[in-house]
C-alpha cells in the first residue's frame, strides 16, 4: 500500500510541477480575491470575525479550483483505467489524491496567508501563527478528504465542472464555519486569545467522520 501511495503521489506532484495547472491558479485566485475585498469593503484593515470569514471563504473557493482539477489528467489520459488494471488496493488512490490536495492547500496558504496579512489584516499575525497553523491544518485535512471524494464522483460525469463545486460546497461549509469561528479570536484587534478549543474539536471530528466515510466509499466510486 505504501509503495503504491508513494508512486501515485510522486506522479501527481510531477504532473503538477510540469503543468502548474492547479496551485498557481489557486494562489492567484486567493490573492486577487483579497485585493477585491480590500477595495469592495473600502477599509484599510479588518479583524476578528470579519477577517476570519474573509480568509476562510477565500481559501474555500480557491480550494474548489484544485478539487475540480484533481482527477482531470487521470480521466483524460486513461490514468484511471491503468490504475484499475493494476493489482493494487484502490484505497491507495484515495490516500494519494487526498495527500496531493493537502499539499496544494498548504502551498496555497503559504502564499495566501501572508498576502492576506499584507492586504487586509489589521492585527499582526506574529503571535497568532502557531494557533492559525493548527486550525488551517485541520481545515485542510477536511478539504482534502471531502474534495477527493467529490472530485472522484464528479470527474466521470459530463458536467464535472459544475457538479464538483455543487457537491463540495455544502459539505465544506461546516469546515468554513468551524475554521472561521476558531480563527476569529486569534485575529481580534483587542485582547486576542488562542483558538477556541470547541471549534478545534469540531473540525477534528468532522475530518475523522468524513475521512472514514470517504475511505469506505471510494472503492465503489471507481467501479464501473
Amino acid at each position, binding site marked *: 500500500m505504501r509503495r503504491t501511495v508513494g508512486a501515485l503521489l510522486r506522479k501527481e506532484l510531477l504532473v503538477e510541477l510540469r503543468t502548474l495547472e492547479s496551485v498557481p491558479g489557486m494562489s492567484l485566485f486567493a490573492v486577487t480575491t483579497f485585493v477585491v475585498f480590500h477595495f469592495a469593503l473600502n477599509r484599510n484593515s479588518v479583524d476578528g470575525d470579519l477577517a476570519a470569514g474573509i480568509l476562510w471563504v477565500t481559501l474555500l473557493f480557491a480550494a474548489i479550483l484544485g478539487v475540480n482539477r484533481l482527477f482531470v489528467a487521470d480521466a483524460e489520459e486513461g490514468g484511471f483505467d491503468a490504475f484499475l*488494471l493494476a493489482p493494487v488496493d484502490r484505497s491507495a488512490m484515495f490516500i494519494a489524491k487526498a495527500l496531493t490536495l493537502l499539499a496544494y492547500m498548504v502551498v496555497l496558504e503559504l502564499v495566501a496567508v501572508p498576502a492576506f496579512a499584507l492586504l487586509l489584516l489589521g492585527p499582526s499575525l506574529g503571535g497568532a501563527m502557531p494557533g492559525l497553523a493548527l486550525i488551517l491544518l485541520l481545515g485542510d485535512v477536511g478539504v482534502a478528504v471531502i474534495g477527493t471524494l467529490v472530485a472522484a464522483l464528479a470527474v466521470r460525469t459530463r458536467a464535472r465542472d459544475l457538479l464538483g463545486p455543487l457537491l463540495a460546497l455544502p459539505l465544506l461549509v461546516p469546515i468554513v464555519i468551524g475554521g472561521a469561528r476558531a480563527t476569529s479570536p486569534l485575529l481580534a484587534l483587542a485582547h486576542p486569545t488562542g483558538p477556541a478549543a470547541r471549534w478545534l474539536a469540531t473540525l477534528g471530528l468532522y475530518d475523522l467522520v468524513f475521512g472514514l466515510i470517504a475511505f469506505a466509499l471510494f472503492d465503489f466510486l471507481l467501479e464501473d
Partner: protein
Amino acid sequence: MAALEVEGLARRYGEREALSNVSLTLQEGQTLVVFGPNGAGKTTLLRVLATLLHPHAGRVSVLGRSLPSDAWAVRGRVGLLAHEPLLYRELTAQENLRFHARLHGVDDERVGELLESVAMSTRSREPLRTLSRGMIQRVAVARAVLHSPELLLLDEPHSNLDPAAVELVAPLIGAASGRTRVICSHDPGGGLAEADIVLGLRDGRTALLREVAQVDPSEITELYR
C-alpha cells in the same frame, strides 16, 4: 485449458445494447481476432475482459476466474493496449513506465529493457507530449507487457506504427510472444494472419465465430457492408 470462456455476454450503455448474447471459448496460447465496424462492440468486449466493465448478463471467465466476482485475481495478469495509450502526456516515457512498474511490483530494470526493445531509450527522458503518435504507441506497447501478462487484449495494436515499428513490437505482442491474445482489428489480411479463432461482431451481436481455416476473407469484408 481455456483462457477465456464467455457465454451469453450482454453489456448495455443506458438503453443501448453494446453487446448481446456473445459466446466464445479461447484456449491458452491461442489468438482471437475480433472484426467489426465502428460501434460493433469490439472495444466493449475488450473492456469487459480487462475487468474495466461489468457484464450485465451472461457468464465470463478469464484465466480461470469468474468476472466480476474474481476481478481482483485477474488484474495484473492481463495487459491492455487500448485506443488511449493510458500514459500521462506530461511525464516522460521512463517516468510513465516506472510509475506502472511500481503499481505492478516490477523492477525498474525491466523498464530499461523494454524501452530498449521498442527503440525508445534515446527519447525516454522527453515528455510524451513532445513525441509522435507512433512513438507513444511504442511506449504504450511497453506498458501493456511491462508486468508480463498472460493475456493480451489489443485494440488495433498497430495503429500509428510504421512497418519497422510493427516488426519492432512483434516479439512483445505478436504471435512470437507466446501469450494468449485477443486482438481487435479492421485489417482482414493482417488480422486473419494472426488469428486462430475469428469473431465477427455487428451491432453487438455475433455475426461470425469460426476457426480461421474455415473463414473466407470475403466474409470479413461483408461485415463492414
